[in-house]
């Protein structure tokens, strides 16, 4: 027994190119694709545009990037991770580097970060001014975050403790 696909031959070429041989299947594929893309960009990868110079030279002003919301699903944030921290939501976020972990005591002396009294090696810091910060103990749910650009005046730089539930994800 032979079967011939009579509909296939009747579909004009332009229609096959634009909406495919079976429009319903094409529509279902499009819907699945759109749902997948929206889902990924809403719940997994957040596109961000960087504004400001506080993360120079690692992240440049007006560059775009992605934040992975699932980064800390299986493990906790680690030192030197660049993370997005939400404000009252995720429309505007801070992009900072984690330098202090829960339970640690952090201080800055003449631009050098000390963790529990030991100097921290920070190869990502290129510009440095003699910043000073008295010892700050971090609670069990607090991380200390700061930008890489320490060449700007300390009072113009947003940094400090962030709660774990404020960390949205890791910058890719």
């Amino acid at each position, binding site marked *: 027994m032979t079967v011939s696909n009579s509909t296939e031959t009747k579909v004009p070429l332009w229609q096959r190119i634009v909406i495919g041989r079976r429009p319903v299947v094409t529509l279902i594929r499009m819907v699945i694709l759109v749902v997948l893309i929206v889902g990924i960009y809403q719940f997994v990868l957040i596109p961000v545009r960087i504004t400001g110079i506080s993360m120079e030279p690692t992240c440049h002003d007006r560059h775009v990037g992605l934040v992975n919301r699932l980064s800390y699903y299986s493990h906790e944030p680690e030192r030197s991770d660049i993370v997005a*921290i939400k*404000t*009252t939501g995720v429309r505007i976020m801070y992009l900072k580097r984690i330098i202090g972990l829960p339970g640690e005591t952090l201080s800055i002396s003449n631009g050098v970060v000390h963790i529990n009294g030991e100097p921290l090696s920070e190869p990502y810091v290129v510009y440095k001014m003699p910043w000073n910060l008295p010892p700050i103990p971090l609670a069990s749910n607090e991380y200390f975050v700061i930008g890489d650009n320490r060449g700007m005046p300390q009072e113009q730089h947003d940094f400090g403790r962030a709660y774990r539930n404020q960390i949205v994800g890791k910058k890719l």
Partner: protein
Amino acid sequence: MKIIRLLLILVGAGFLAWLTYNHFFPNEEKRIRKMLTNLASAASIPEKKNPLGAFSAISKVQDCFETNVEIKVESRFEGFKGNISGREELMEFVKLAWARYSNVKVEFLDITVTIDPSNDSATAMLTTKVTKTGERDFLFQEFEVKLLKHEGDWRIAQMTPMKVLH
């Protein structure tokens, strides 16, 4: 088949009725969100200013605040550091802003509203974003906003900056 069609029509009609009801009788949270959105719109300053538009916008802003409103602004807003006490002082500030600036867009983003059990006071957390139209850079500040309801209208009684990184 007829039953399915009837069911679909009933579901559609029910959805439309629900939308209509919500539009004409919004709950308190929606009313606060709408008031804040209107306030952001009125606080924005267009490129082409005219006295009538300015008067209308300023009176709209005035209607959103209590007479004894307290607003604290932190130094991230260069030149706007300090406290604003009372609606009169706020209006002077708004008039000055209208005279000095143009092309300024104000937005309230990521609004979270909590209505108190008494139903006549509420707290809103929001991020204020101020952009000069056409420019990519912007100023932002997170605020905790206390609202009170008087004669059915919600008004802002207090705005305090929040520190995300403490």
